[in-house]
């Protein structure tokens, strides 16, 4: 009984220690704060900006920032702040979706590849090599060319481009963990491979996965905005930051605010994920520090 409670206490104190380390990192806290603000705007968009962010109002087109429209209006007279607020929903949906695709496919394949080795490992690694032969954004762009434009295909394309990163990351960690004494001990007492992977290997590769997830969400937002900017991502009138920036490009000379503010929104969102990712890496595993 006493033994059980001691084991139960260990992860909690580890979590507290990590949280204390993270709390000392002011940059990471700043990143977390920006992220919370974005989450708040994404969740409460209908309250913060009631009405449709896509309804045009041509009389008000290309107005500069004012009390009525804090960040001005776009070429169709739509409030830019309203579209940024609603756009945070779209961007976060993409970020979560992309990371989910990467995690759900990449982590199991990385675990299998690293744990079993041999032919399975060889096949998975060669496919990974092929995918990594293309820079991530270009791979996503190529996939969009096949799958077509739109929100769903943006998520799938960027998600697939992230899979090899998770495979490599997880496999690398598994290779070192699988040789540990506790894994050998589990094998010796007849624990099934599935249970060993789930109970002994996976918890020990969670740190790099957590860090990569934070950084990956930032990259997902950046890639999605890039596709939107090129006109091959989320399509108008859906308020997506990259597409907003792309349409604002035509008015750079007479109304630069149209392209400026969505860019600030993208920048701050990516910055917050990068700050948090860096902070998590420093707090959870200083060996990975960049």
């Amino acid at each position: 009984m006493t033994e059980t409670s001691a084991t139960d206490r260990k992860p909690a104190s580890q979590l507290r220690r990590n949280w204390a380390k993270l709390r000392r990192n002011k940059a990471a806290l700043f990143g977390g704060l920006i992220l919370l603000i974005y989450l708040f705007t994404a969740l409460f968009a209908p309250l913060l900006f009631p009405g449709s962010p896509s309804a045009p109002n041509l009389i008000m087109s290309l107005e500069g920032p004012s009390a009525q429209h804090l960040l001005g209006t776009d070429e169709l007279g739509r409030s830019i702040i309203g579209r940024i607020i609603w756009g945070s929903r779209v961007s976060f949906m993409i970020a979560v979706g992309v990371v989910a695709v990467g995690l759900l496919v990449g982590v199991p394949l990385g675990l299998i590849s690293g744990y079993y080795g041999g032919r399975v490992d060889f096949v998975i690694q060669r496919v990974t090599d092929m995918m990594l032969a293309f820079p991530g954004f270009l791979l996503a762009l190529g996939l969009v060319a096949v799958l077509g434009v739109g929100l769903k295909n943006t998520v799938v394309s960027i998600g697939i481009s992230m899979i090899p990163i998770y495979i490599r990351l997880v496999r690398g960690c598994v290779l070192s963990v699988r040789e540990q004494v506790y894994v050998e001990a589990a094998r010796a007492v007849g624990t099934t491979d599935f249970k060993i992977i789930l109970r002994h290997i996976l918890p020990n590769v969670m740190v790099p996965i957590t860090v990569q997830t934070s950084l990956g969400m930032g990259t997902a937002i950046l890639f999605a905005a890039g596709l939107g900017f090129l006109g091959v991502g989320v399509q108008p009138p859906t308020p997506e930051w990259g597409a907003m920036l792309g349409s604002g490009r035509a008015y750079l000379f007479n109304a630069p605010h149209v392209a400026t503010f969505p860019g600030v929104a993208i920048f701050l969102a990516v910055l917050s994920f990068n700050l948090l990712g860096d902070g998590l890496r420093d707090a959870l595993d200083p060996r990975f520090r960049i």
Partner: protein
Amino acid sequence: MLQYVIKRLLSTIPVLIGISLLLFFMLRMLPGDPAQVLAGQMATPEEIENIRIQLGLKEPIYVQYGKFLARLVQFDLGRSARTQNPVTEEVWARLPNTMLLAVVAILLACIFGIPAGIISAVRPYTWIDYLVTSAALFGISMPVFWLGLMLVVIFSVILQWLPAGGTGTWQHVILPSVTLAAFVIAFIARMTRSTMIEVLSQDYTTTARSKGLKEQVVIVKHALKNALIPIITVVGLQFGLLLGGAVLTETVFAWPGIGRLIVDSILARDYPMIQGTILIFGLLYILVNLVVDVIYAYVDPRIHYD
């Protein structure tokens, strides 16, 4: 060394096969007839039939793939569905423009990124270190296309110093290459800093210092020489990111390179051209990685050629 280069060249074969498979199945994953897709919307039934015969669409899939490979090794990717010009002709015509941007950007990244990282590592946790690390973090978080547009607003619209887009003079190269370089400068600065901090704490650096060598000599001859190997790798790997960034930068500045070509082709669903641009991007990436590996082996004598 030659043996190493040959072995390294052979190791690119699986990746080349991967690229060919991707290009081959790309058309077959699309809904509809691949011959129609390749010929474009405006093609006549005769043209479509010709392409069907050329691709051997009625033959088994492995025969089709074999024929595809045979055409690929001859750089025969057909004609653009949009302009009817040979794909390779258009791709090769635009390649020097993209290479110019990429090379200038990499040079800028090395000139600014490496010294920034060294200064930051030599004076850790001082104001200059915080300045460099903050600027680098901003650099990697900034959307390249937004940075490009903001540079246009400042230097073309407000100050009217530089052209907003196009090509022709050296002034046209400045804004696109700076835009493209920003992310890589930031990344290289971060990498150089962390590598230098690690190297500066090694025993051989302490020995060099205790011998009474000047700090500059310790940093340049002892620390930087060892830190250079991972830095070279990162510079090489960043080339891939540069190619991705080139797509966006070329769009912002209406720069007539391959990046712009791939976007135009996707928007026009010009699949032969999409295949051509993807192929050239893949080959460039492989080639750069190969060159980096050879330099790597040359710089570090500890790397065995076998």
